[in-house]
C-alpha cells in the first residue's frame, strides 16, 4: 500500500495505538484494525439510515407522497423492523447458479466500497482525526478499490444463470469501461493543480481563499477553480456508481433488476448495502477532490467539526442522486456508451490538456 507519509496530524490508527499504549508493529496492526472497524461502522450506520429511511423520505418528498411516519420520530425506527424483515427472508438459491462466485459477488461489492474509505480523510471530530491511511498514491488507490465493484457485478450477472442477470452484468462492464476513463482523466486534472496524489495534500491545496467578495472569501475548492472538471466528474461519477440516468445495469422495466435479479434475502441486502456505500464513496471522492474535503465553506463556520461538514457533503451528493432518480429518464445502453466514448472521453482529455497548459504557463 506504500509507505505512510509522515503527517503533522496523526492518523486514526496511530491515535488508537497511542491510546492503548502500544507501539511499533503491534500498535499499527491493532490500531489499524480498530480504526477500520470504527470507520466501517460509521459507513454502515449511514447506509442503514440512507437505505430504509432517508431514501424513502427523499423520494416521497420529490413525488408528493408521505412515506414512513408511524414508527418512531419521522418514522426513523422503521430501520429496525426493516432490517429484521430483510434478514429473515428466505434465501432462494436458484438451480444452476455458479456457487462460489454467486456467493462471493454480494460480499465483494460492499467490501470494495468500504475499502475505498481507508484512504479518505474524513476530517476532525474533536481531537480525533478520522483518516485511516494516507498513502502517496491515495487517489489512485481509491479508484482502484471502487473499480473492483464491476468485477462483483459481472460475477453476479454471469453466475446467476439468468438471461436478465447476464445482460445486466454485460451492461455493467460496458458502462464501467466507458466511464472510468473520463472519471480518472478528469481527476488527473485536479492532480495537476495539486501536484500530488496524496489525499491529505489534495485537501490541503484547497485550503486557501480563491478570492474575496465583500468580506466573504470563496475557498479555492477545485469545484470553483475548475467548474467544468467538476461537472464532468459529477456526470462520470453518476455513471460509475450506476445511478439514474445511468442505472443501466439494473434498469428495472427493461431487464427486471439486472445482475441482482436472482438474489434474495441477505445477499440482496448486501448488494443493496454495497450500492449505497458506493454512492457514499462516490460522494466522498467528490468531497475530497472538488469540495475541499472536510473544510467548512466559510471560516465563520469552522467551529463545526470537519467530520460534520464531510458527512454533509456526502449526503448532499446522495440527495443529488435521489433527485436525479426522481426526475431524469434513463438513457439507452447504446446512447450511454456513445456519451461515454464520444462525449465524456473527448471532453475530459480536453480538460486535462487545457489544465496542464494553464498550470504550466501561469503557475
Amino acid at each position, binding site marked *: 500500500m506504500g509507505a505512510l507519509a509522515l503527517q503533522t496530524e496523526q492518523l486514526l490508527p496511530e491515535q488508537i495505538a497511542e491510546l492503548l499504549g502500544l507501539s511499533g508493529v503491534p500498535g499499527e496492526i491493532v490500531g489499524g484494525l480498530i480504526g477500520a472497524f470504527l470507520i466501517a461502522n460509521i459507513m454502515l450506520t449511514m447506509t442503514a439510515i440512507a437505505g430504509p429511511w432517508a431514501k424513502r423520505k427523499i423520494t416521497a418528498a420529490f413525488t408528493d407522497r408521505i412515506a414512513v411516519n408511524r414508527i418512531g420520530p419521522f418514522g426513523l425506527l422503521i430501520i429496525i423492523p426493516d432490517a429484521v424483515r430483510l434478514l429473515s427472508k428466505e434465501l432462494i438459491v436458484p438451480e444452476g447458479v455458479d456457487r462460489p462466485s454467486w456467493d462471493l459477488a454480494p460480499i465483494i461489492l460492499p467490501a470494495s466500497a468500504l475499502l475505498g474509505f481507508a484512504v479518505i480523510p474524513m476530517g476532525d471530530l474533536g481531537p480525533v482525526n478520522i483518516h485511516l491511511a494516507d498513502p502517496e498514491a491515495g487517489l489512485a488507490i481509491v479508484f482502484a478499490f471502487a473499480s473492483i465493484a464491476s468485477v462483483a457485478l459481472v460475477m453476479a450477472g454471469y453466475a446467476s444463470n439468468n438471461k436478465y442477470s447476464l445482460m445486466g452484468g454485460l451492461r455493467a462492464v460496458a458502462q464501467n469501461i466507458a466511464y472510468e476513463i473520463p472519471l480518472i482523466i478528469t481527476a488527473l486534472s485536479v492532480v495537476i493543480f495539486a501536484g500530488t496524489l496524496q489525499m491529505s495534500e489534495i485537501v490541503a491545496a484547497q485550503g486557501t481563499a480563491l478570492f474575496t467578495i465583500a468580506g466573504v472569501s470563496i475557498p479555492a475548492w477545485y469545484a470553483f477553480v475548475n467548474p467544468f472538471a467538476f461537472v464532468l466528474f459529477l456526470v462520470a461519477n453518476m455513471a460509475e456508481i450506476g445511478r439514474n440516468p445511468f442505472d443501466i445495469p439494473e434498469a*428495472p422495466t427493461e431487464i427486471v433488476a439486472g445482475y441482482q435479479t436472482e438474489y434474495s434475502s441477505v445477499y440482496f441486502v448486501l448488494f443493496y448495502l454495497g450500492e449505497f456505500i458506493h454512492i457514499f464513496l462516490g460522494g466522498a471522492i467528490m468531497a475530497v477532490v472538488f469540495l475541499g474535503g472536510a473544510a467548512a465553506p466559510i471560516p465563520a463556520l469552522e467551529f463545526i467539526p470537519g467530520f460534520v461538514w464531510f458527512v454533509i457533503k456526502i449526503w448532499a451528493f446522495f440527495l443529488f442522486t435521489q433527485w436525479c432518480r*426522481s426526475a431524469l429518464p434513463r438513457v439507452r*445502453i447504446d446512447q450511454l456508451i456513445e456519451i461515454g466514448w464520444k462525449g465524456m472521453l473527448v471532453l475530459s482529455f480536453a480538460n486535462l490538456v487545457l489544465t496542464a497548459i494553464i498550470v504550466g504557463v501561469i503557475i
Partner: protein
Amino acid sequence: MSLEEPLPDTVQEQSADDLEALLGDLVIGREEHINAPGFVIRPDTVQESLRRLRDDAGFDHLSCVTAQEYEDRFESIYHLKKFDDPTQEVSVVVPADKENPVSQSADAVFRTADWHEREAYDLVGIQYEDHPDLRRILLPDTWQGHPLSMDYDQDQPQIVALREHANPLQEDHRSETDSDTMFLNIGPHHPATHGVLHVKATLEGEQIADVESDLGYLHRCEEQLCQNSTYRHQIMPYPDRWDYISAGLLNEWAYARAAEDLNDIEVPEYAQIIRTMGAELCRMAAHFLALGTFALDVYGDFTAIFMYAIRDREEVQNILEDLTGQRLMFNYFRLGGVVWDLPEPRDEFFENIRDYLDELPEHLEEYHDLVTGNEILQLRTIGTGVLPPEVAKSYGATGPVARGSGIDYDLRRDDPYGYYDELDWDVIVEDGCDNYSRLLVRMQEVEQSARIVEQCIDLLEDWPEDERNIQSNVPRTLRPDDDTEIYRAVEGAKGELGIYIRADGTDKPGRFKIRSPCFSNLQTLPEMSNGEYVPDMIAALGSLDIVLGEVDR
C-alpha cells in the same frame, strides 16, 4: 396515404349497388346489416373481394372480423370501413361449410386479419386457409374444443395429459446453425408489461430480432358472458371490465351505442351531454395513466412523473365517483340514457370540476417541463418505435396510436355520436410516427377533453330544471327482431371500440363480439420494435398503452 390507393381528394361515396357491381360475380348473395350493406361471397374469394373493396372503393380499414356459427353454417364477417370516412361501412359475409369450416384468410390483404382470424379459429373453430400462423391466441394451446361453437361441451374436463403440459421450453435453445440470437421471455411477470402480457423476444445482442406477443392470460369469456345476459340491464356492467383503467364510461358507451341503434332507442339530449362529459373525464383519467406508465417505462423507476400523473388521475376519479358512485366499475350508462342525474348539490359538483379544470393547464405545463421538454426523454423516444401510416392502417391501428402516425381518424368527429358534433374541439394529429408523437397526442388530447368537459358543464349548468330528462322510455324487455345485425364503434381511450351484435329474437344477443382497439394496436408491436434495442421495445409497448383486460377480454 399509400401509393397503391388511387384515392381522389374527396372521399368516394358508393351505393350498395355500385359496390355489388364492383365485386361482380364474386357476390353470391346480399344481406342487410343496420348501417352497412352486406355481401355474401364464397369462402375462396375472400382476398380477391377485400382487395377490390380496398383498392377500388377505398375501404382501407378492416375494423373487425366476427366469426359465428349458425344451425347450418359457419360465418366470418369482415367489417370494412374507410379511414377517411368511417360512416361508410360494408360487411363482407363469408359462409363456411358446417362440417368442414374452411375459409380463405384475409391476412394477405389486411395484416390485422392475422390475430382476428386466430381468435375466430380459437373461439369458434373456423379454419383459415393461407393463414401464416393459425394457432390459438386467447386460450391455452392445450385447450380442447372451440368454446363459442355449438357443439362445444361445457362440461368437458380441460385436464389434459401431462405430456401436453410438458415444459414448452426446450432443454437447450442453441440452434445448430451458428446463430447468435438469444431467446428471452419478457413477462408475464415483468415490471414493464403492466399486466399479464408475455412477449417472446428473440434478441441479437441487445437488439430485438423478433417479438411475439402471447395473450390470453386475462381472458374472461366476456363475449360469452354478454351473450348469456339480457340487453336491458345485464350486459352494461361488463364493459367496465374491458378497459378497466378508468375508461369505463367509454366502454359502456360502445355497448350503449350498438344496443340503442339496434333497438331504435332515442337518448335525451340532456343525458347525451352527461354522457359526453363523463366519457371525456374517463379519457382524461386514462390518458393520465398512460402518461404515467409510459414515463415509468422510459424513466425506469417510480418517478415524480408517475406520481404526478396518478395525482391528477385521482382528482378525475373523485369527480367520477361523485357522478357515478363508483371509482372503477361505474355501470352508469343505461340504454336510453344514464342511471341518475348529476349529484346534488349541483353547484358544488360544477365547482369541483371547474376548480380542477382551472388547475389543469398549470399541471400540463409541469408535465411538458418534466417529460416532453426533457432532452434525455426526447433522445429516447424521438425516432424510436416508428410506425408508418400505411403499416398502421393495415394493422387496423386506431386511437392515439393511429393519430400519432399522422392518421386523421377520430370517431368522435368522423362518425359523430353523443354531443360531440355540437361542441368545439380539435382532433390531435402528430405525424412523427414515433413514441414521442404518441405521447404528445395523448397529452394534447387531455387538453381537448378538458375543453369538451368545460363546455358540457356550461350547458348542464344552464339546463332548465324541468327538462332534465336523463332516460327515455325503454321497454322493460328488449327483443330485437331475429337476425338483425349491427356493428357500431365509439372512440374509446385506446381507439376504436366496436361492438357487433346479432339478435336472435330473444332478449339476449345471439352473438356478441367486441372489437378491442388494444388487440389491434398491440399487433403492431413487432413492426415497431424489430431491429431496435430492448429498451425501445419496452418504450414502444408503453406508448401503445394497452390494457390486458381489453386485449384478452
